[in-house]
């Protein structure tokens, strides 16, 4: 069973209804962020979720606990009153009156699309775990605030301080130390850890590379013959609307869509590169960082609309400037490998060079490719990725004090 999955549902909006649907989503978004009205209610299997209207399509994307099918079923069961007014604007949605949990579930499942690359920053934590760990952290911070000025308290040795903290937690009734059977076991084996994995993976990578060489040579040849086109997918959203999304205090969404260069060659290259990045993300970068970028909660690429468009969705910490700066400083090759197959991307050389490392051009390209995220939800908007990782380590020590020393653990606050 999958522990976390990407959900992607794309439906066609009835003609003339896109504007009304956009308005509805904006309204829900406003209620969520300005009035604290959570449209999912108590249903909390999604870490992040968004609805985006792009031309005549409605995109629903979420990073969820469990499998995508289970999630959609539960969503239909728990949030029918949220889904119905949204999807009534879409083609083929069960007629009002006849829409049941079952028919809505089927509708969502049949409109699912594949996600080609999915990155999750913290793999072995469910929404409920992350929220519990945040609660533990905050409770300890408050306890330390109350004792920090007492010289006699500070004079205790670290182990005694930890015992006092545990006694405090016990008093609050927070379930801080019951062992979670999934706590340590959910990471897929890293290549280092699982020796049997190493050889097939390496052989795969080498084979992939060998296959890539003629492809790249062909691409360089093609490139010279391709007219340099502009990306026709220029965002129609007002720049200021996007700007406001990007200054959400702590986390921000990014929704980007670009046109893939035509021809079978681009389709194959893009799928190969996405597959390679997925391998790296699953087996190397599975401890909270993608390369050295530690600010991404979830991100994905999906090839949609019969291979014509490439969708990029991300939930990241901090400002757009810092996110894009990280891309350029730390992930330029990977991004060039992917987006180099799209129309209008800054010129790349040999698949992985150039492109995203042209800082100013790349930022301008990214900005142009972005569309407004009309509705965006986060299950824990107050937490950064480093916060989530730190909170997990705090709890890991409470479950099993062999994981760290009391002295070092106290530095986590």
């Amino acid at each position, binding site marked *: 069973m999958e522990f976390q999955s990407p959900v992607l549902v794309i439906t066609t909006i009835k003609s003339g209804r896109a504007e009304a649907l956009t308005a509805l989503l904006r309204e829900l978004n406003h209620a969520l962020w300005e009035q604290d009205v959570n449209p999912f209610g108590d249903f909390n299997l999604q870490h992040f979720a968004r609805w985006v209207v792009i031309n005549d399509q409605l995109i629903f994307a979420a990073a969820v606990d469990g499998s995508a099918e289970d999630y959609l079923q539960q969503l239909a069961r728990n949030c029918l009153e949220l889904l119905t007014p949204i999807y009534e604007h879409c083609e083929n949605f069960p007629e009002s009156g006849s829409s049941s949990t079952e028919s809505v579930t089927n509708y969502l499942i049949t409109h699912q699309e594949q996600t080609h690359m999915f990155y999750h920053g913290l793999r072995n934590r469910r929404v409920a775990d992350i929220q519990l760990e945040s609660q533990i952290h905050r409770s300890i911070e408050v306890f330390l605030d109350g004792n920090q*000025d007492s010289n006699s308290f500070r004079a205790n040795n670290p182990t005694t301080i930890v015992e006092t903290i545990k006694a405090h937690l016990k008093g609050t009734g927070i379930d801080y130390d019951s062992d979670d059977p999934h706590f340590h076991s959910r990471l897929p084996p890293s290549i280092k850890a699982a020796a049997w994995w190493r050889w097939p993976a390496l052989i795969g990578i080498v084979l992939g590379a060998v296959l890539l060489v003629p492809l790249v040579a062909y691409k360089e040849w093609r490139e010279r013959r391709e007219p340099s086109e502009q990306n026709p997918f220029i965002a129609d959203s007002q720049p200021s609307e996007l700007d*406001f999304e990007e200054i959400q205090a702590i986390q921000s969404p990014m929704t980007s869509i670009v046109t893939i260069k035509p021809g079978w060659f681009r389709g194959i290259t893009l799928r190969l590169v996405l597959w390679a990045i997925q391998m790296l993300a699953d087996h190397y970068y599975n401890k909270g960082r993608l390369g050295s970028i530690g600010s991404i909660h979830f991100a994905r690429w999906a090839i949609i609309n019969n291979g014509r468009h490439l969708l990029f969705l991300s939930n990241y910490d901090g400002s757009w*400037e810092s996110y894009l*700066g990280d891309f350029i400083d730390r992930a330029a090759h990977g991004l060039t490998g992917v987006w180099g197959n799209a129309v209008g991307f800054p010129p790349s050389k040999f698949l992985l060079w150039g492109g995203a490392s042209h800082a100013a051009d790349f930022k301008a390209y990214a900005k142009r490719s972005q569309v407004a995220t009309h509705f965006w939800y986060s299950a824990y908007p107050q937490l*950064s990725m480093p916060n989530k990782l730190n909170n997990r380590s705090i709890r890991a020590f409470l479950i099993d004090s062999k994981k760290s020393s009391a002295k070092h653990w106290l530095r986590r606050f």
Partner: protein
Amino acid sequence: MIDKQDIQGFIKQGYGYLNYGRYLLVKIVDAAGFKQWLETHIDDISTAAQSDLKQTFNIAFTRSGLQRLSLPEDSLQSFAREWYENMVTPERSYRLGDTQHNAPENWQWGAPHQTTIDALLFGFFETSKGCKAWQQTIESFDFLEVIEVIEPRNLPQFKEHFGFRDGISQPTVKGMHKEKEKFNALATGEFILGHKNEYDEVAPCPVVNTNLDKHLQLKTNRQGDSLLGFNGSYLVFRQLEQDVHAFWDYVDQQSKDEYNKSHPQQRLLFASKMVGRWPNGKMIKPGATAQPSTGISNGPENQFTYENDTAGFGCPIGSHIRRSNPRATLDGQKKAKDAIKTANRHRILRRGRPYGEPIVSSMQADEILEKGNDDAQRGLLFLCLNADIARQFEFVQQTWLNNSKFRSLYTEVDPIAGIKPDAEHLLGNHFSIQGKPFRQRLRQVPSFITMKGGAYFFLPSIRALKFLSTLEDEA
């Protein structure tokens, strides 16, 4: 090699040795008259080729200023979006933290409801008399209207009003300055437009149709446009009022013991931890509780990269100077060198000076607290230069100072310069002092700084000024 004669001298230095100065914010009322004056006074403009000047003069423009000089719209749009829109769009206010008590509606100048500022004329002088005479000359011109006169004031020992030595850490610009610390030497294009930057690229530079450059003042690019921005820079100006009494009163309250007695040494330590240095500019060593003395050869320090203080036991992770330039403070990178490289893509050349009388001449906490709040206006005229406002100045403000999740932190913004959230929204107004066996956290740090006015300016090259002064008026 860069042509220092073509570059305004303020990029090279802040002329701190000249004690008197004026910043005049002006509106151009007669463009033809202004241009005529500018054309005949180009040689008075201080350049980077000059040194030991006894008086200086520099000039910078907002978009409305260049519009008044008849620079066409397509050229204006080739400038940085931040400059084009200026500092007060709703979105930018939010991004910079210019909200609540810092909101433009409370500003003294630069807000949308106030007179539009076209240009900044500024000079520094050896004598007060020379300074006043210069101001009077400018005020006597009928082609411009002086909207705001701002008077900087040097404080003893290069201090700012809270009593801390300021202006210690500065990047050096390759081709312009002698390199001091290796990690602080940055590519020319980080500060001067048209040159290679830290990405080893020449970033987009403002241009103008070559047909308008009748006297062929400007360099052209391969597309045949004239490079109006070449050898220029963007100048950020923010007037930040400081509530000196509130600052010391807060740290005094925090350092009181259970019998409500003040502890001057603890108070000074808390204040220094918030700043990140001791008042005399020395760094705070892990475990130190008192300010080390300075000798002649032993002044403020700038060689450190925090590699010896990764946990923040000396200089706290969230302190003002560590946020303003995190140096080698890791952020996902494995090597200090990589962290410095990333940090160096967001540096600014600071050109700030204080304004207003110090609250007490000694600037000692005891006397400040005794004197009480005097309601006088004083603070910092924050000026800085950069080539990419979004990637440099705005990044520092948004991603480093005002980010409650800076590095591994949870709920705190810059304790000195950060914009603290509303009281009811208690996220971001604490301050953690990392230590053993565990941190101390100062809670509900109030705002000690209020934004009073600001704008983004373009500081043209000498050739660009010649071009602008001979630009034909619109028919």
